[in-house]
């Protein structure tokens, strides 16, 4: 490769459009246009929310799996904790401050459905209250997530590869069952309502939510980009690629991995909390391994393990396809109803097929992880220029 190309001075349109990222973006835009023209703007907003929530969760998974090499099959655990924390704690705090019942009875459906509208009513009186409630909820979610990430990492961190994956899967399921059965927390199988900090925007609620979640997803993306390029990120990759030599180089493997799991869990819990605020209720039945562990894995594998941009594109593309199956299922797969089959199950087929196809034909995903220099581009260019000068000088 010539140095000109490396410096990005020359722009080659053909090469630009043949780059995989660009091609994927074009496909995404085409699908979005198609959906917009056939179903209107609401479907686009729904896709955006899906995208943003799952982008946060999948990026956290990518931090743990892609950069640290921990096969996180228990992603659902941190998401659940985030969701439950937002469902259980901020509402109770508000209730306590307002002098309403805030103990175990808060979660029982007969009390809850009268309590929550009162709290929401208070929130709609002031933008400040709403904002504080939103930020407080997210902070609580992140803190609880970090705590659970640390707790889970204790017994698991010393295990290896598939062993570790299975243990994490089991822990994830454990939290799932706790959520389904502990009625005092968030109502068990009966959904619990959550005070809605976005109600204050009235008819604009949906759009504002999309914006807020998007902004948070973007901040998470920036943070992770920065984190993975930092010395800490380098240690992560070093440990992922060869933990023995990383240990020999003086890296504390257990501590670095634990940090990564804690950060990842905090981010995933944030995603879970945002999802709950968007739906404005917690139904513990909805938080399954399938939705919050396996889908993010499929997103990540399609996008490219260890590449944040790839993960974003993977989430976007697959979210669209998933929504399209749900929308067009009777139109496209109507023949299945002749046998009494609901075409909705094709969602699982899609998920499984994506995983299989990616593994067989695109092991590195849409946008493979690039082996990038750790320095910013401008400094790389300067170093290269200096080297070029030195070479010419030698001649």
């Amino acid at each position, binding site marked *: 490769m010539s140095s000109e190309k490396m410096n990005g001075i020359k722009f080659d349109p053909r090469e630009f459009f043949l780059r995989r990222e660009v091609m994927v973006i074009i496909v995404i835009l085409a699908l979005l246009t198609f959906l917009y023209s056939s179903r209107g703007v609401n479907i686009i907003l729904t896709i955006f929310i899906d995208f943003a929530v799952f982008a946060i969760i999948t990026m956290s998974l990518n931090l743990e799996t892609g950069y640290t090499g921990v*096969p996180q099959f228990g992603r659902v655990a941190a998401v659940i904790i985030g969701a439950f924390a937002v469902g259980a704690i901020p509402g109770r705090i508000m209730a306590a401050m307002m002098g309403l019942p805030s103990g175990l009875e808060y979660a029982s459906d007969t009390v809850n459905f009268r309590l929550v509208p009162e709290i929401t009513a208070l929130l709609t009186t002031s933008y400040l209250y709403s904002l504080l409630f939103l930020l407080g909820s997210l902070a609580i979610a992140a803190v609880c997530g970090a705590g659970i990430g640390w707790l889970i990492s204790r017994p698991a961190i010393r*295990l290896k590869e598939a062993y570790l994956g299975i243990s994490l899967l089991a822990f994830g399921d454990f939290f799932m*069952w706790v959520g389904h059965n502990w009625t005092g927390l968030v109502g068990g199988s009966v959904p619990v309502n959550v005070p809605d900090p976005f109600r204050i925007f009235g008819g604009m609620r949906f759009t504002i939510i999309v914006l807020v979640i998007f902004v948070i997803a973007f901040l998470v993306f920036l943070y992770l980009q920065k984190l993975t390029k930092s010395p800490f990120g380098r240690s992560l990759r070093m440990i992922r690629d060869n933990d023995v030599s990383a240990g020999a180089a003086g890296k504390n493997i257990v501590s670095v991995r634990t940090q990564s799991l804690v950060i990842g869990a905090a981010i995933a819990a944030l995603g879970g909390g945002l999802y709950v605020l968007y739906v404005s209720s917690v139904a513990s039945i909805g938080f399954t391994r*399938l939705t919050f562990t396996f889908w993010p*894995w499929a997103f990540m594998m399609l996008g490219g393990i260890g590449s944040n941009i790839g993960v974003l594109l993977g989430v976007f593309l697959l979210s669209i396809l998933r929504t399209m199956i749900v929308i067009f299922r009777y139109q496209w797969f109507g023949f299945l109803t002749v046998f*009494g089959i609901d075409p909705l199950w094709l*969602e699982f*087929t899609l998920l499984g097929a994506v*995983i299989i196809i990616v593994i067989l034909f695109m092991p590195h995903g849409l946008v493979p992880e690039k082996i990038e220099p750790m320095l910013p581009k401008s400094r790389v260019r300067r170093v290269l220029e200096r080297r070029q000068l030195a070479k010419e000088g030698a001649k």
Partner: protein
Amino acid sequence: MTPWMASGLVYASGLALTAGSITLLYIVTRTFNFAVASMATFGFYVAYTGVAIYGGLPYQYYPLVFLFGSFLGIVCYYGLNRHLLYRQAAEITLMMSTLGYDLVLLSFIQMYADFLTHTYRLFPRRVTMNTYDFELFGERAAAIILPIIAIVFLTALHMFLTKTKFGVAMRATIENPILAGASGINSDKVYLVSWVISGGMASLGGAFMAMAMTGSPTMGMFTIPLMFAGAILGGLTSLYGGILGGFMIGMTEYAGVFYLSQQLGPWVLGYRMGIPLILMAVTLLFFPRGLAGIPLSKYLKSLSGKKRGDGV
């Protein structure tokens, strides 16, 4: 027998087979088979379809259950696992590939359940297979017949692995694939046979478990952590360890739930799956190699031979 023991025996026999299936496949191909979940569910549905549509006892359909599971295994091997093994894929990739296969199978199961509802007016989403059982010596027949079937099957498997030429060749490949290849043993065939056996075992295990629990399209998905827990408890190094691990997980769950719910009240029932997982976590904490790391395994060893990779 107390009621919990009868169901516990049935359930634990099923878990023993599925955990054995996971272990067998892992020691031969390094693949953690997620698809065991759907294979088990399919096993249940084959037996259910048999009794619900054609009548008779669930037991008479077990050969068919085994064959169907083997078929699913063969499809997975030729469609997926074989290519990855030749590519020498990482363990996680192998595991993820079976997860993809599992999800595809799960969607087929759901569609099949829809199909049964629509075409035969059945209720395949909440099935109590018990109703098709009969009584034997004042007990549910399943509590006696299923452990016997499991023992006969495992004895046959043991004979196959120790007495036949191909069985010995399988053990040889497990221990030392390179030397086995150099001796002229076709590893491709060994992998295929291990998929056939473990697929059949998984399906059979699922059909067993349905005799003790409510059969539904997601039953495999909900019990797979326990199957894995059994395999991990067994130490993942010997087939017999895995089978024992699965059996112990199943029995602990039933015994634990029974006694704890008597002591603490019925709310324990909701957390029943936590009990075997705690057993697994505690075992791993003290014996990171599972049952194989407990001195007890000395007795196991006399059955199974030494640890993998032992010797020069």
